[in-house]
């Protein structure tokens, strides 16, 4: 345990001491949120202009309203949810993806700078090296995700949290997502010689994982081949937990909330196990 927290402490110290990196990492989600969430306003499509509404008989207004409400709840989870809030919660999870994917690069860097050898000659478990880095990535992801959400709030996210317990679930989901993704990425990149390869892996993972999740659009409007991918993608589950806890208020579906959280827990445990196994087996100074 001491060795894991020592490695985690080092990673976090380094991170806290380079604020430019932290800020740069926030720019991309901000863009996605701003461009997609604001410009590409899906909820606008389902808003009936005032003058049209005024010319309709009251009976049909009610029918039209209920129709649009049903469409909105089907797409965005609840009738009150606007597209910007929908995307902002998506982006809060996407930053976790970015942070986790890039966290794997630290092993390639440590290898390059020789620090990895220092860890490897110490009498510690190889898995501690990976777990230390995974936990550091998770703390970073939590901080960055909070910052993205705060930016979202400043730009007009309408929060409607159901209960403190669900909010705690949302925080847990971010942590579990970070553990899942960073463990997988580190397991994949353990033996990579240089960070150039790592960049390639990062690009290979980032966008496909983002687009096969429900970050930008709901699963219901995805093509059929993509839906199962979205269901497998841990990002989707974290996003749904976040939306359930923060946006849907009392209309949240508790059963599916619990399912998403359970899926993430299992995924995180398996991924961390895989990462530790891969580290004990394959992490070495040899290339």
């Amino acid at each position, binding site marked *: 345990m*001491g*060795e894991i*927290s*020592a*490695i985690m*402490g*080092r990673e976090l*110290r*380094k991170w806290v*001491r*380079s604020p430019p990196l932290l800020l740069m990492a926030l720019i991309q989600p901000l863009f996605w949120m701003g461009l997609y969430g604001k410009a590409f306003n899906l909820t606008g499509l389902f808003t009936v202009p005032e003058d049209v509404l005024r010319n309709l008989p009251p009976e049909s207004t009610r029918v039209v309203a209920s129709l649009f409400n049903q469409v909105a709840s089907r797409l965005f989870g609840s009738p009150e949810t606007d597209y910007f809030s929908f995307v902002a919660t998506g982006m809060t999870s996407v930053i976790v993806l970015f942070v986790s994917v890039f966290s794997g690069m630290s092993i390639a860097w440590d290898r390059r*700078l*020789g*620090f990895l*050898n*220092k*860890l*490897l*000659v*110490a*009498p*510690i478990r190889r898995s501690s090296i990976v777990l230390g880095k995974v936990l550091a990535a998770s703390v970073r992801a939590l901080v960055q995700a909070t910052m993205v959400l705060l930016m979202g709030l400043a730009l007009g996210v309408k929060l409607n949290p159901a209960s403190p317990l669900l909010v705690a679930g949302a925080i847990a989901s971010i942590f579990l997502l970070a553990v899942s993704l960073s463990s997988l990425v580190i397991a994949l990149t353990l033996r990579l010689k240089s960070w150039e390869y790592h960049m390639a892996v990062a690009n290979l993972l980032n966008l496909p994982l983002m687009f096969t999740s429900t970050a930008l659009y709901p699963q219901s409007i995805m093509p059929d081949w993509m839906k199962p991918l979205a269901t497998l993608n841990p990002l989707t589950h974290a996003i749904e937990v976040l939306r359930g806890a923060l946006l849907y208020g009392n209309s949240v579906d508790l059963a599916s909330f619990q399912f998403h959280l359970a899926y993430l827990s299992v995924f995180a445990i398996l991924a961390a196990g895989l990462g530790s196994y891969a580290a004990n087996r394959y992490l*070495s*100074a*040899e290339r």
Partner: protein
Amino acid sequence: MGVPAIEAEDLRKVFGDVVAVDGISFSVEEGELFGLLGPNGAGKTTTINILTTLIRPTSGSARVWGYDVRTETSKVRSVIGLVPQDLTVDDELTGIENLRLMASLYHVPKDVAERRIEEVLELVDLKEAARRRVETYSGGMRKRLELAAALIHRPKVLFLDEPTLGLDVQTRAHIWDYIRRLVREEQLTVLMTTHYMEEADANCDRVAVIDRGKIMAIGSPRELKAAHGSDVIELEVQGNGIDLHSLVNGVGGVLDLRVEGSRAVLKVSRGEEVLPELVGRLIGGGAIVRRIEMRRPTLDEVFISLTGRSIREEHGSWEEVFRQRLNIRRVRG
């Protein structure tokens, strides 16, 4: 303990189709400062990496402090310290944070660690700089911190891979002062690599000359020089009328003699014994000696006589050149 501190037997390491280490055997006694001497690419670092459990040998066996480097890796790791070729202390942390990190990686209890950190900082004279970030350190300071970090858990055997690579001459001399002090005060066994022949000569108890993965000779620098090098005597007499050749020819222990007018260059096996006899003969033969000079052999000559090449002709791999530059840049920075 009776058992050697380090014992390597027929170690081989093959990378693809490159044989980096080709069946080397040697042992290092407790308390010795042992040097692996050879050009870049000779297999020195690979040997250190095998002995420090970083890589597994293709065949052969090795024990460090009695523990097998293949099967008892964590025992080996807990009794050794490694100062790698690259500067690997963390730039963004302070000196003391680097040492605390090492202490926890070696499971040194907190209170013991704090006292030990004070001790090692004292040992390498970094007390004042300890709370500054390493990025503000000079190259020599970094190397000293690196030494301190490798000592935090009181290792029995210290491995130094090219401890002075990329440092300027003065700093190199300082680092050596520190290394000798560590060996004395911490009762360490040290295995180091270097391609600076003078440094090995001045500091190692014994050296193994290694070339292309093979050990060419092992012994103290003095033994090696006596066995594979020769003293060189250069002299000049006044006037041209003297037949230097016949005067010098009878002197015992002369291996090679070249005469050019009033000058002569001799290779001899025991210069200190040849010199008096030589001077006696010259004076007895009526020559007036204007100048006489004796040079002792260097390990460089030993290397040339063993391998037929000078150690300096070798060029490092691209990667090594890159690392060296990286180190030099850090030293300047």
